[in-house]
């Protein structure tokens, strides 16, 4: 089991950042690596069990299933059903935590998965770097860096 953990500080309150990332169908609107997204079977994007079907900018198709969503904890957990990355048992959580001294929040994005031997580092770097840190960098840019 490989674990990836990336965390950052975003210069906006958790409520504000959550409203940008909460929509399970909203990746293209904030993550620079994602080109398009739809929810299969026209389900609402906050229905637990719904599946988002999206493409990365380099053309890869990914299907992910929403496992948990909490507006109270500002957290969202999902699994990969289908992707070109070659990962199995992939479960990830994106979570925000308010920082009480100032309008900013602590953002964590973590994943656990299995993969073929020898690809651990490459995949951990891809997921932790381009996907998670890439997303945080976009949020930091959006909400302004101080």
């Amino acid at each position, binding site marked *: 089991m490989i674990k990836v*953990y*990336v*965390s*950052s*500080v975003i210069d906006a309150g958790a409520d504000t950042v959550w409203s940008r990332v909460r929509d399970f169908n909203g990746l293209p609107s904030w993550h620079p690596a994602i080109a398009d997204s739809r929810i299969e079977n026209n389900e609402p994007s906050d229905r637990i069990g719904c599946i988002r079907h999206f493409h990365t900018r380099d053309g890869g198709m990914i299907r992910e299933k929403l496992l948990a969503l909490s507006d109270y904890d500002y957290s969202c957990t999902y699994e990969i059903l289908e992707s070109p990355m070659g990962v199995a048992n992939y479960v990830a959580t994106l979570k925000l*935590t*308010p*920082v*009480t*001294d*100032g309008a*900013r929040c*602590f953002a*964590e994005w973590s994943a656990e998965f299995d993969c073929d031997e020898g690809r651990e580092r490459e995949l951990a*770097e891809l997921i932790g*770097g381009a996907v998670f*840190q890439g997303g*945080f960098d976009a949020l930091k840019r959006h909400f302004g*860096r101080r």
Partner: protein
Amino acid sequence: MLQKVLRSTIIDAPIERVWAVLRDFNSHDQWHDVVEQSRIEGGERSDQVGCVRSFTLKDGNHIREQLLTLSDRDYKSTYCIVEATVPLQRYVATVTLKPVTDGNRTFWHWESTFGAPPGMERELHDVVARGVYETGFENLRRHLRSGADVRRGATPMPTALPLPARRIVVPRYGDADVLVPENSEAPAPKEGEVRIRQRAIGVNFIDIYLRRGWIPQMLAAGGTPGMEAAGSVLDVGAGVNGLLPGDRVAYLGPLPGAYCSVRSVPAAWCVRLPPAVEDETAAALLLKGLTADMLLRDLGRVRAGTRLLVHAAAGGVGLLVCAWARHLGATVIGTVSNEDKARVAREYGCEHVIVTRDYRFADAVQRQCGGADVVVDGLGDAARDENFAALARCGHWISLGQATGALAPISPDWLVAKSLTFSRPVVFDFVAAPAQLAERAQRLWAALADGALKPPPIERYALDAAAQAHERLESRRSVGALVLMT
């Protein structure tokens, strides 16, 4: 009704450093202002679960608290009040740290629940939230900023005092032998500055131009050259956030003065070093690597299939550009002055190497690939016509240096013959904002870590032998990067 208090903050220090202080259940009288004196009862260790700390507050109150859980794995500790002269009832508190991987900082979460006598809920809530937690955040920040945690037991280093240092000066412009070492003083960091104990200093062609007096507005006679170095922070001036004594950093800046052992520079010039990057690698790589990043990404827009011509392909910048461009899928053509350099350039990803001592290469480039889309030119005037001839239609000519002499003016009418573009960049303009610098440095460290960039061979010289290093770089015999060690 049970009161709940929750406060959190971000501390600009690595989690290990913050945790080293907080896991010690008896450390609070060293960093928290409200605590007068504290001891662990019964001679137990302060990280023994179940131990009791007995302490007095500055206001005269006395409290005994017991450590309930301590986890080095989760960076978490829980404790409760067992006896107190303040009316906090059933008080249980938890301290949790989490790493901020983006910037190597620490998220600190501090919460508690307790009962309060009727009518005192609000007052006690404020005491805990503001008087203990928020004040504690500020006090620990100050504690770390002063370096008190790292030099416990050692003689405190005098801060805000000049420190003895060694530096190289250019008493008058001229050849390499004008460089002389001398003893000096490194003044305390001013507002916004950090004082750095430098371990490795990068040597660049611009240092030679400064020594020769080609850019007198940048370096007056009597000044110290050098644009970049790596080392560790000794102390920080007022208003500096995010850097603490002991942090490993590297910097590059538009004002010379790096050829010395201790130097104060604006914190905005600095980047943190990842643990995997040695000081000498950072000094060899920072300015040259960020230059390569600027050349390939911003100016050359190099991608798969781009035909790139690199002069001095075995030099400090040249090798980095070759390796990175090749990784991006470009066709890399390089010029070098001898066979030894040709071998190294090939090793770093230069596919077609042209060995030339008289700056004749245009025919070979045209034959090899039909012209270059991008030329990285550190040669200057002697290669002016050949560069023009080597460029493909719509090519881009980047004039990075002038090793053979100042480039004669380039006429727009000349460029129009092939729809060429021409640029004359200075890397400092591309890292002027701290966010730009951090982003580019991050890309550089990532490229090093994933093998996209192979660090160049490094030739090391003692700081006092700076003159030899300059001679070597000017002789065109060196391969890779030159670094001065202190």
